[in-house]
């Protein structure tokens, strides 16, 4: 298990623990704004789902031809596609929402609204839209489109989103926030129209 994966597992433990902390019924009745602690169980569940995907990823990686440290572009491409084929086969029934559950989708959208608000937020949004495409229809478990550039992910946004294992990244394709398996070039799941707000 990589350091990053270990960190994620520890993070899951921590947020699960936070999730068990008692919540004030009075606070809930007054409809106070949700806090990170409120979202902790949802985030923990999300990271569990991400890690379940990473297990499939690692199995595919072990089965794929080993990439030398000094590879040619053709070798990189072949390894990537071999991994993608195995992952897509292992997740043949995957659908949108398997990883970004409706609850996690709501958390993500809340984070985005917060991080993209105000002048700093406007700058981040502009940064995301730099080189972003307008709209591309997506399905879960598809290959990342070859002709779409990887978008900018502002550090302020990445800091606000749950940290992912080393194998995974967040990116945008048009208004959709995607999970990106950067070794296999697979989109395991995505939040549709995440940039559109609520």
């Amino acid at each position, binding site marked *: 298990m990589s350091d990053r994966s270990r*960190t994620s597992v520890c993070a899951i433990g921590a947020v699960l623990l936070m999730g068990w902390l008692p919540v004030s019924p009075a606070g809930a009745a007054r409809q106070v704004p949700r806090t990170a602690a409120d979202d902790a169980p949802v985030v923990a569940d999300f990271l569990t789902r991400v890690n379940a995907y990473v297990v499939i990823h690692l199995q595919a990686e072990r089965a794929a031809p080993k990439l030398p*440290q000094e590879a040619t572009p053709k070798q990189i491409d072949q390894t990537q596609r071999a991994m993608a084929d195995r992952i897509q086969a292992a997740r043949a029934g995957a659908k949108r929402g398997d990883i970004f559950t409706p609850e996690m989708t709501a958390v993500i959208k809340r984070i985005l609204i917060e991080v993209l608000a105000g002048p700093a937020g406007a700058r981040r949004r502009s940064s995301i839209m730099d080189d972003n495409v307008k709209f591309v229809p997506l399905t879960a478990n598809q290959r990342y489109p070859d*002709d779409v550039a990887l978008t900018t992910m502002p550090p302020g946004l990445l800091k606000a989103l749950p940290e992912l294992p080393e194998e995974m990244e967040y990116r945008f394709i048009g208004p959709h926030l995607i999970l990106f398996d950067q070794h296999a070039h697979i989109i395991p799941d995505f939040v549709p129209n995440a940039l559109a707000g609520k």
Partner: protein
Amino acid sequence: MSIHRVLAASSLVLLLAACTPAIVPQSGPAAVVSPRTRAEPPMPLPNREGSLKFAAMGDSGNASQGQYQLATQMAKTHQAFPFELVLMSGDNLIGSERPQDYAEKFERPYQLLLDAKVLFFAALGNHDDRNQRYYKQFNMEGQRYYSFKAPRQNVRFFALESTYPEPTQIEWLERQLKESTDDWKVVFVHHPLYSSGGRHGSDIMLRKTLEPLFIRYNVSVVFAGHDHFYERIKPQMGIAHFVLGSGGRLSAGDIDARSPLTARGFDADQTFLVAEVFDDQMHFNAISRTGQIVDSGLIVRRQPPAAPAP
């Protein structure tokens, strides 16, 4: 006559000029960038035997005419000033990254330099696929961040992946910087800690993370990209910072003219930088697609703090 014409007319001669140090090396805790104004003539690169000669650029891989023409200019410069390595500060392949893209966005434009056995060392930018770290010609040996010792002079380069400055990477960097006994510690990274770009600008969060380490462990120079122009920043905390994001892309007019950070900015054309390290000095020239020297100067390396008297 415009400054650009003056610079263009003198650039070739000056590149080949014999060494005439313009500034006496200085000692002290801070790197010093020679005070230059736009009206001064370019400073020649000494081009002396035994020095470390290298080039640096960023945001190159878009297969544009600008990238190809700048690459041609790099090859021309290499004939007069034989740099042996090129630092790439990220966005090495922009857009699709199929095998044919590696050819179109890297191998073909830099073919002459690759044929001349010039080594390229890449850092990953926000548009780069992490699989690039396995690509032989980027010399990353499968690592997202790495360091290497220069073949000449006492110089160590550190390549960072600034899109994800996670704790593991920062701990690695601190260990590497601490253990390095090299005179020159030079960092290349995609996101600029300081930039006057209207489009992106300074990455404050990254600065808060990295700058304390750079100061503590005596980094002298930082090369970045991301903003698509050339900018030399006024020394910050004794460290020289460059934005070199116009290796292929160009955001014409993007430098904020009111920025207090700029020592010299050039956003009218694609640009790369050549530099030469000998002992405690680094001479540099920033050269445009058309061969103009748009900036030049001398950096004196930072010195480690003196040991306390017994």
